[in-house]
């Protein structure tokens, strides 16, 4: 049977992709951020997951406002990265696992989650940057896993509640664990933490709130579901709503987890970056 070995969170902003493309990892501005990743890579290289479930939010490449799914799951054999318009280099395609995708979709719809399935899905920086951070070299990396993108809407309100995100993760975890093949699965929760790109409040960062979220998500994720979407925007910033992806990841891991690694750094571009490696029991 499939086994979920753990979950990893990371920021996924395009500036990280740009820094990787330009080889800026050792520069003073970027070094404290990139230092968070070697322990995660060591763990992934040791555990060698077969599949990465990559939970992210599309930012206007795969979806437009004409049709905006609240929860979308990739069901393709591969996923193409395309030009997003502002200059980070386009990456080679990412191998998928369509069989596992359809199993997850079947099980989650049976579990009463209404899923949008995508046989074609262009994946943007939200998906690609975490893959680059965790598996440098991508297809050239011997441990590069197959990947399944799951995108939640944080572009346009109404966005899902934190409670729904956690419940989605729990249903996703149940679906994965019922898959008959003996594979190892890692779940990525990407985006965040606090940041705001738009309006007079651009540049809003909330260290205290972020750290509270990083504390509670480990053993008390249900406590965080008491935060309303209004309060999430107010505290974490308009784009800090990406914390939803962390909650989806957390739900998939089951109740019993342990923290193997934790880092928090301000700022990268306009964003507070949180990295958390959780091992599932």
């Amino acid at each position, binding site marked *: 049977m499939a086994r979920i070995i753990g979950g990893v969170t990371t920021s996924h*902003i395009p*500036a990280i992709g740009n820094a990787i493309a330009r080889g800026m990892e050792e520069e003073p501005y970027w070094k404290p951020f990139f230092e968070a990743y070697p322990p995660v890579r060591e763990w992934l290289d040791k555990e060698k997951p077969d599949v990465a479930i990559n939970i992210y939010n599309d*930012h*206007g*490449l795969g979806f*437009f*406002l*004409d049709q905006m799914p609240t929860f979308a799951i990739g069901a393709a054999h591969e996923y193409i990265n*395309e*030009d*997003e*318009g*502002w*200059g980070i280099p386009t990456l080679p395609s990412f191998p998928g696992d369509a069989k596992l995708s359809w199993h997850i979709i079947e099980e989650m719809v049976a579990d009463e989650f209404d899923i949008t399935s995508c046989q074609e899905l262009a994946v943007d920086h939200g998906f690609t940057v975490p893959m680059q951070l965790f598996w440098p070299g991508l297809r050239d990396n011997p441990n590069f896993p197959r990947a399944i993108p799951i995108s939640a809407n944080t*572009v*346009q*309100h*109404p966005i899902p509640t934190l409670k729904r995100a956690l419940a989605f993760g729990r249903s996703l975890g149940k679906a994965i664990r019922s898959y008959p093949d003996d594979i190892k699965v890692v779940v990525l929760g990407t985006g965040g933490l606090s940041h*705001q*790109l*738009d*309006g*007079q*409040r*651009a*540049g*809003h*960062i909330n*260290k205290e709130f972020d750290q509270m979220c990083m504390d509670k998500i480990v053993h008390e994720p249900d406590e965080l579901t008491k935060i309303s979407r*209004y309060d999430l*925007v*107010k505290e974490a910033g*308009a*784009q800090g709503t990406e914390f939803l992806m962390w909650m989806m990841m957390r739900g998939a891991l089951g109740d019993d987890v342990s923290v193997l690694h934790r880092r928090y*750094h*301000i*700022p990268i*571009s*306009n964003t*507070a970056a949180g990295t958390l490696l959780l091992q599932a029991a």
Partner: protein
Amino acid sequence: MEEAHFDHHIDIPGTVLFDGDMAMKGYALNKMCFSFNKKENRDAYLADQEAYMEEYGLNEEQKQACRDKDILAMIAAGGNIYYLAKLAGIYKLNMQDIGAQQTGMSVEEFKEKLRKAGE
């Protein structure tokens, strides 16, 4: 029985929540910006901005905000920051340039504000 009217709008100072009302208001502008994922469309915009805006049916408020490269005005006209970022990218403006413009700071001041948030 009188039907209750639900107002979904919420007020957070300095923040325009991109909800259904804004999504309808800004649809043409955001659709134009979405087209900038493709290089030929970015080139076409630079070659003839007025014709390109007309093609996507932008209203005058949206057109003027684009002419002025004024992000706050674009947001007020229904622009969503993720799509507007693609327009800003045409002019090689990144998120810190945009942040500085919206907050009335220099880019250096804006970066310093962000750095201080980590102290």
